[in-house]
């Protein structure tokens, strides 16, 4: 099934008991876009991202990735998606290289050594390849998570606050690599609290607050409609307006 959208989110609602954390969210992310999903803490960014990745089951609505429904055609949808989660995690039994091999295997990819070596090289993990995750620093773990998300060469890459707690050097290298992937045609979805990052990198921006999308437009339009103010100012204006209206 082909679709003009890399990610097509239609009327997604998510309730935990009586609390509605996503309210009728509709978003369409075109193929090849560098998309920024911004919002304050607790706005619903991670819930939305985890719903796209199939880690959260929506109460209603539908999501497709590259034209594949994340529930009905979950295998194809998951093959098209790479998720870098926000939380750092651990794996005490396997070294980094074997973890990447195992993850390739889950995606039915045999003999992926060449790409794994490239990932280790780009993520500057060569020296850590035989180490276990528990032996790595937070920044190193973040690199491993990025490598894990890319091991099956997904068309759509979601980065949930990938630079949180990461030093400036890795941040620069990471963005250089992500820009390369974007140039190669990958669709990138980024959530970040560093608004200058979003302003520099993203070509389309959506802002979510209290589970609702309060704006979604191209970065150029967004800046133009707000007299070319900095994204940070626009973000604060929109969030404050939303809070006042409530």
């Amino acid at each position, binding site marked *: 099934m082909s679709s003009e959208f890399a990610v097509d989110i239609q009327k997604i609602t998510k309730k935990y008991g009586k609390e509605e954390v996503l309210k009728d969210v509709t978003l369409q992310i075109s193929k090849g876009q560098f998309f920024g999903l911004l919002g304050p803490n607790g706005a619903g960014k991670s819930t939305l991202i985890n719903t796209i990745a199939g880690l959260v089951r929506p109460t209603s609505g539908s999501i497709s990735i590259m034209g594949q429904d994340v529930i009905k055609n979950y295998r194809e949808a998951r*093959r098209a998606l790479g998720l870098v989660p926000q939380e750092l995690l651990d794996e005490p039994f396997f070294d980094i290289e074997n973890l990447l091999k195992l993850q390739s*295997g889950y995606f039915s990819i045999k003999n992926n050594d060449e790409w794994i070596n490239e990932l280790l090289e780009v993520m500057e993990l060569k020296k850590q390849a035989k180490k276990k995750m528990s032996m790595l620093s937070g920044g190193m773990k973040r690199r491993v998570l990025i490598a894990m998300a890319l091991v099956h060469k997904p068309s759509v890459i979601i980065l949930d606050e990938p630079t949180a707690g990461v030093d400036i050097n890795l941040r620069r290298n990471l963005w250089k690599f992500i820009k390369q992937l974007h140039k190669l045609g990958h669709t990138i979805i980024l959530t970040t609290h560093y608004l200058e990052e979003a302003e520099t990198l993203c070509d389309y921006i959506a802002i979510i607050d209290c589970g609702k999308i309060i704006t979604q437009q191209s970065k150029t339009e967004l800046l133009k409609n707000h007299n070319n103010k900095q994204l940070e100012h626009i973000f604060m204006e929109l969030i404050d307006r939303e809070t006042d209206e409530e």
Partner: protein
Amino acid sequence: MNFYGTLMLFYKEVMRFLSVFMQTILAPVINAVLFLIVFYPFGEQMTGFGFSNVDYGLFLIPGLLMMSVLQNAFANSSSSMIQAKNYGNVIFMLVAPLSSFEIMLAFVAGAIVRGILVALAVYLVGGLFYEINIVHPLATFALVFLSSLVMGAMGLIAGIWADRYDHLAGFQNFVILPLTFLSGVFYSTQNLPEIWYQISLWNPFFYMIDALRFSILGQSDIDIFISIWAIICFAISTCLCAWWMLHTGYRLRH
């Protein structure tokens, strides 16, 4: 079906427990050996436990073997799942194109391999104490396989259900351990008062131990076919329950 993906998850499950084989294979063997050391000197003196022409120590071996299989198959899948949840690496599996059935298959198969290896190890060390001539070798293998399958699925259920190690320890200490000790490992249910005999019939592990005793010694408390049917029913129900939990994303996909 994602055969290669399932195979890799199974491989991961096996390599995980082999990487800590002292704890996962040797420890249960030492446990069984200690029981044999304790009971070995009294073996010939113990009579009237319900089995004719069998030394008490030899009578114990199928029970000890199955007890080790049950506890270790359960521990394998339950600890693997709860560790994956607590360390957060369960996400690697959940974002992969693996179906609920494939995940269940890999976890249960890993538990079966551990169950079989532990059974083999206990059998070999049991041979140092007694000459064990297995009466029905194929049935013995099938019973170890099926019982590991039941416990692998049960461990997966417990691992998904448990939020903390404490929950899992509670399940192991208050459910699995009493059921294994009260399943006829150390006694024949023929000698129990009627009420306790009837209660034993509600214990799933009783059927596994009794059937294994028949396959190894050629004697059992109840008809082997009843036990086999009971084990098959437990296998189907535990696998269905584990699959349902994975399919609905219970405590995994929020």
